[in-house]
């Protein structure tokens, strides 16, 4: 076994993959939420549609998007492997659990939270990502150039109450997943230091509140403004 596979097969190496893919997905979420803030412009979706075309055609963005798909797949596959390993490490459980007194609920349920987020992600990607790439969606023309009208797809989707409720709830799960995941990734990378850890925890706390709220605000805003 080469030193690379030996490292990546160890529990520490597998956690390293979880941390790196998780942090990359956090970077992705940051870009995703920043770009989608254009849904709040009252311009009939022009800025958003131009942005959507850029995001599906620009070669640099393409590379980043492939890295994002790889991160999602890697994060999921490694989490399944680690969950199985962790469950096998305790074949007989306790009759009485005191875990609520020594750890946060989010940290103990990252697998369940992640599974819910993954199910949401599949539906979310079908609704918008798949439609943008291969769906039959209307087009609009701005200054002589044709754009796919993803904005109208979003508008129609979020006129359905159940979709809005589903998205808001899903962002709640994302918030809890991030509330542990953000700081945990740095701990796994070995970034635990009296000088930096308080800042990492603070940024993580702000991030896990602000980003999901901004995401959740988009369907709510569209629902009440259309």
């Amino acid at each position, binding site marked *: 076994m080469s030193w690379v596979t030996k*490292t990546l097969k160890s529990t520490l190496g597998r956690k390293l993959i979880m941390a790196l893919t998780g942090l990359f997905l956090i970077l992705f979420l940051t870009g995703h939420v920043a770009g989608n803030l254009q849904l709040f412009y009252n311009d009939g979706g022009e800025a958003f549609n131009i942005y959507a075309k850029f995001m599906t055609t620009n070669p640099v963005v393409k590379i980043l998007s492939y890295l994002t798909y790889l991160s999602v797949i890697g994060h999921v596959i490694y989490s399944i492997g680690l969950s199985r390993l962790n469950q096998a490490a305790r074949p007989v459980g306790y009759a009485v659990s005191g875990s609520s007194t*020594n750890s946060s609920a989010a940290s103990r349920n990252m697998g369940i939270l992640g599974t819910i987020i993954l199910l949401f992600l599949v539906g979310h990607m079908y609704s918008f990502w798949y439609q943008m790439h291969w769906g039959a969606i209307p087009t609009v023309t701005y200054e002589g150039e044709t754009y796919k009208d993803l904005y109208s797809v979003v508008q129609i989707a979020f006129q359905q109450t159940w979709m809005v409720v589903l998205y808001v709830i899903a962002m709640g799960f994302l918030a809890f997943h991030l509330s542990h995941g953000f700081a945990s990734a740095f701990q796994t990378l070995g970034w635990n230091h009296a000088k930096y850890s308080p800042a990492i925890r603070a940024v993580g706390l702000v991030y896990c509140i602000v980003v999901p709220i901004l995401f959740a605000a988009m369907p709510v805003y569209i629902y009440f403004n259309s």
Partner: protein
Amino acid sequence: MKLTLKIWRQKNASDKGGFATYPVDHVSKDMSFLEMLDVLNEELTEKGEDPVHFDHDCREGICGTCSLVINGKPHGPLQTTTCQLHMRSFEDGQSITIEPWRAKAFPVVKDLVVDRYAFDRIIQAGGYVNINTGGVPDANEIPIPKTIADLAMDAAQCIGCGACVAACKNASAMLFTSAKVSQLALLPQGQVERKTRVEKMVAQMDAEGFGACTNTGACEAECPKGISLTNIARMNREYFSASLTSENV
């Protein structure tokens, strides 16, 4: 005090085991938890029943032999060893559930006694120094800053009881292993085998069947010696840098 004890009884490693309930009377608040079990065992012995087997040795909180998950918490409600836990931490009439450490790597030997040789094997894999360190050195003979020496001593406080494994939802031994890696990685005497040590100890930890770390912090919260999670971060740094730079291809 009157108490109802619900204790895990298991004849041997292959027995399925189950809970047995014992009412105990005349328990003093000043008794340690283990003394309370001694009283129960005297009664059981007098009745001709098999006493409850549990690990204990120094009863001073320094050897790491005692264990027990008491009402779902390793070493009970206080952040101390079971031998240093007293009955004043419980209420009269309370029901107390006592279970062994639960981990694949810590198989039950009998009742509440588990086999913790897995920890010894992790130490054997690299938790030592091969150089001759001589006798007790004179003060300041070895150049090491006080702050670093303190960190090493904090890590060296680990008594290897296994409460971290018992508390962890993944039965992970990261806190134990990281404390043992840290105490030597921080000191000048530990530098010679620094990279090989962490690689071997982590490999042995994995081979024993302990789980991975989810950074829940349960181990740190339950550790009777207050071993910090910063040790796990240090072990991760040591391991990743050793993986990249050690001579072990």
